[in-house]
């Protein structure tokens, strides 16, 4: 069950270099959305009509506020669609379709979970952390970025009570290097009951390896070019494992998949 809402933008703020947080009024989506699900957003056009995007663009829910009827997304400017999205302002309207896809399986109260996110992969994880903390889980977050200024979800994560461990490639905050380096520092016993991850493929590959070694179940959120977003066009297909005969649809079989069902090829299915 999903909705098509003409959502009034309440804020669309620059939160870092090329990074934006957009909040809009979409009460039906706000009432139903779950962590890991996404919205499919129509983009306003470019001055050059031939460069204007025809298709919608998918973004993970970064948060929902059912009471106020608001949803938020966190996004990075990547191409023409996201550039144009950054130009809309409060009071304007966007057509938003959602919530779409399968979200994360929420762990039971009391369990200890580990979230590993890189770049924009943090968006669905930050929303997930909120929900897990509300339900009484212990939440550890390994959060990686290029540089401290890009750790745009850190404040939100810390405020909601998650224990955050940070890595930046330039060492401007936390560990200098890959976020997956931090995995090695996790206690050998009971590192977590469940692992959730979203980010670049290389990162998720490491996380999957770690989960396998420690025998911890987990889930990852994948990415793919989309047309419909609802499972009818078969455009978002990914082969989860090299040997699979069939393709999975990121939009409706996922975007969240069990971590042990995915083999990560360099560059594919990941989020920057």
């Amino acid at each position, binding site marked *: *069950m*999903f*909705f*098509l809402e003409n959502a009034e933008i309440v804020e669309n703020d620059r939160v870092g270099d090329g990074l934006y947080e957009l909040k809009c009024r979409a009460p039906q989506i706000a009432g139903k959305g779950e962590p890991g699900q996404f919205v499919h957003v*129509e983009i306003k056009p470019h001055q050059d*009509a*031939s*460069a*204007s*995007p*025809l*298709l*919608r663009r998918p973004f993970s829910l970064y948060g929902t506020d059912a009471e106020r009827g608001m949803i938020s997304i966190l996004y990075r400017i990547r191409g023409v669609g996201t550039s144009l999205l950054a130009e809309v302002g409060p009071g304007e309207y966007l*057509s938003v*379709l959602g919530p779409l896809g399968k979200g994360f399986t929420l762990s039971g109260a009391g369990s200890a979970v580990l979230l590993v996110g890189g770049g924009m992969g943090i968006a669905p994880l930050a929303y997930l952390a909120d929900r897990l903390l509300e339900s009484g889980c212990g939440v550890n977050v390994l959060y990686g970025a290029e540089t401290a200024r890009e750790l745009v979800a850190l404040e939100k994560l810390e405020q909601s009570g998650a224990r955050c461990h940070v890595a930046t490639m330039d060492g401007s905050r936390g560990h200098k290097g890959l976020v997956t380096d931090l995995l090695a520092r996790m206690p050998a016993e009971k590192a977590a009951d469940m692992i959730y991850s979203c980010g670049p493929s290389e990162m998720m590959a490491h996380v999957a390896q770690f989960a396998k070694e420690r025998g911890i179940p987990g889930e990852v959120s994948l990415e*793919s*070019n*989309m*047309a*419909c*977003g*609802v*499972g*009818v*066009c*078969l*455009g*978002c*297909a*990914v*082969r989860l494992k090299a040997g699979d*005969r*069939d*393709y999975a649809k990121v939009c409706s079989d996922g975007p969240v998949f069990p971590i042990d069902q995915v083999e990560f090829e360099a560059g*594919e299915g990941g989020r920057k």
Partner: protein
Amino acid sequence: MNLEVDLGGIRLANPVVMASGTFGYGFGYEGLLNPNEVGAVITKATTREPWAGNPPPRIAETPCGMLNAIGLENPGIEVFLSKYLPRLRSSGAVVIVNIAGRALKEYVELASIIDKATGVAGIEINISCPNVELGGMQLGTAPRMVSEIVKAVKEETNLPVMPKLSPNVTDIVGIATAAECAGADAISMINTLQGMAVDIETKRPVLGNIFGGLSGPAIKPVALRMVYQVYRAVDIPILGGGGIMSAKDAIEFFLVGASAVSVGTGTFVNPRLAMEVKAGIEDYMERHGHTGLDEIIGAAVL
């Protein structure tokens, strides 16, 4: 206002049809757009055996259009009949089954199997998919092949049969008349134009399959031209489409000779498009004092 139309023996309560491959098996947009609201649902291409489809990426965007290279991924006719058709049937939708294959034999088998099923209103023969190595478009670009396939399918079934033509041809009229002579009940046009996209940073084709099918507003002028040409040449009804994004676009297709219109890519952009098109057609007819679609079908053909 009467929006009913007869598409070669398939009775449609309204002339707005969901294009094959863009509405799955009818329930992808449930709640927003239900299969029984539209004139007919043309299901995703079904083959004899399951097909896995093409490697990703399968989608790329182009100016006012998109490329797809799905490669006819589908679970095969048996799964279609057991898993998807019953639900569609019980919804009350008018179901047209789009069939594809690598060789004449497969089309024949599919037709004979579908003929025995209940709840199918007609067959659309996909001889125009640009995204598969064998069959598909190859079969649809020579009048003789088109004629053979239509004849063979007609022999297997009493259902209305509608070949879907490829625009990637020198002489669309030759293909259409071949189809008509072979006994086609209607003609569906157009399928996608073959195109490609390139990523200048990676220096690679964007699509896993290199080539894909171009759909969306970009192709509308070509689609209108072909419908116009074919309307002048054949007497069977035409299901016209290609780039329809509004009621205005749909009306253009009626005026050049389409008896019904198909909406494809437009649904991805606006899931309610089919119903908005339907409402817009009604407005237009009212404004122009028309009471039936036959008053506008072909009205701009000189």
